[in-house]
């Protein structure tokens, strides 16, 4: 059996003196779609942000395709900034607040990483960008600025921007939480498409129904630890832990 594409081993993280991740272990095989659910403060977003080193961690390892992210060696020595930047290109992240670059067109938002990080030519980058913008349904908006796009459109561009880099793992951080309800579906549909095409994904989400439909596995986090993990039917239909049951009830699933 091949090595998991993403391995998180005994991850511990502190914010000042408070430990927010207390030893998290998680593995994803290529093509897995894993949703992380839990109440705020459970550490789920922090966990996601550790994978692409937007957050530092003081203990444990994260490996993508067998390469240790952010740190190296038994001394947990931090890597150089330029190396970390290179490693970040192995993942793609979509943010709750979209975070598109407002001074660039949708097309340029997508090609920036392709030209500056992957060093592709402008022609190659434009071709890839236009392909992905078409995939998310926005080929007629490629020359628009983020200020001219709706929330759902912006988030779809953000997805294109991340996926165009051909990452090994895609990270989604509550990507529909900041959207008006009628715009949520257009984004979820794009994510579903990517999932069926075999993209490896780690999603933090509040959309329980969506998590149930799209995930191979669901992870329930509570107070910095993974409390339950398993196929969506098991977790949602017959939760084993008391807290998960309460959480599901309060989420009206």
């Amino acid at each position, binding site marked *: 059996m091949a090595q998991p594409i993403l391995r998180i081993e005994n991850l511990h993280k502190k914010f000042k003196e408070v430990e927010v991740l207390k030893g998290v272990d998680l593995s994803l095989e290529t093509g897995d779609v894993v949703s992380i659910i839990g109440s705020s403060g459970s550490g789920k977003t922090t966990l996601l942000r550790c994978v692409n080193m*937007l957050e530092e961690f003081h203990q444990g390892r994260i490996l993508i395709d067998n390469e240790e992210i952010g740190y190296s060696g038994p001394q947990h020595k931090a890597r150089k900034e330029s190396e970390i930047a290179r*490693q*970040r290109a192995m993942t793609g992240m979509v943010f709750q*607040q979209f*975070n598109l*670059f407002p001074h660039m067109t949708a097309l340029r938002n997508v090609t920036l990483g392709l030209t500056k*990080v992957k060093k592709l030519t402008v022609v190659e980058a434009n071709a890839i960008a236009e392909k992905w913008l078409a995939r998310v349904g926005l080929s007629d908006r490629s020359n*628009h600025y983020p200020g001219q796009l709706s929330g759902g459109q912006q988030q779809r561009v953000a997805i294109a921007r*991340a996926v165009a*880099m051909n990452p090994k793992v895609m990270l989604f951080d509550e990507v529909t939480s900041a959207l008006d309800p009628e715009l949520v579906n257009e984004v979820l549909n794009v994510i579903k498409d990517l999932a069926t095409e075999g993209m490896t994904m780690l999603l933090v989400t509040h959309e329980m129904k969506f998590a149930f439909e799209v995930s191979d596995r669901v992870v329930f986090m509570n107070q910095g630890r993974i409390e339950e993990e398993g196929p969506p039917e098991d977790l949602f239909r017959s939760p084993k832990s008391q807290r998960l049951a309460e959480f599901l009830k309060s989420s009206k699933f």
Partner: protein
Amino acid sequence: MFEQGTVLYEIWVSRWALLQGLGVTVLISLLAIVLGTILGVFVGLVLVYGRWVSRFAVRMYVDFVRGTPVFVLVLASYYLLTQIGIQLTAFQAGLFALVVFCSTHVGENLRGALQSLPRGQTEAAKAIGLTFPQIFVYVLAPQALRQALPAWINTATEMVKASTLLSVISVAELLLVTKQIVARTFMTLEFYLLAGLIYFLINYAIERAAKAAERRVALPS
């Protein structure tokens, strides 16, 4: 029309002096703005990205200069730099004071603009694998500069206004030249009105150019 003793005659007679004075005013203002901006960008970058010690030192510099009236800066610079050690001309000493003054304004504006950018911009840029220099050049600086443009234009007009202060240290810019002409012709109201009109036009032109620039650089929404 150009009879001796009328306003227009006197203006015509003094035209070279007036033009020279205007030229000096423009020269002072331009040099102050350009040099002040260069220094100011450096100041701003240190305030945002510098190490603790450098940031502290620059912060002290900015707070001290901004708490001092620009007139005092000019006078101090004049007395200090033309008499002790380095022997600068009045023009150079006055310009030095204005450059220092301008740098603190530009630096503060830049700092404010950079720090007002949402953190998500840096994070999104990091997420696609850009290194910090790339993030600064492609993502942060373009946005910060757009943001800082109105304040910078304001600083530029302040520099034109501050050029008048050099008249007190005998630099022959427009205000001093006006004073001299008035002393000779006793046409106080006329020549001061003329000078006022010129100053107004310069700054008004800058203001209009600024609005046009802002419109051109604005992002469509």
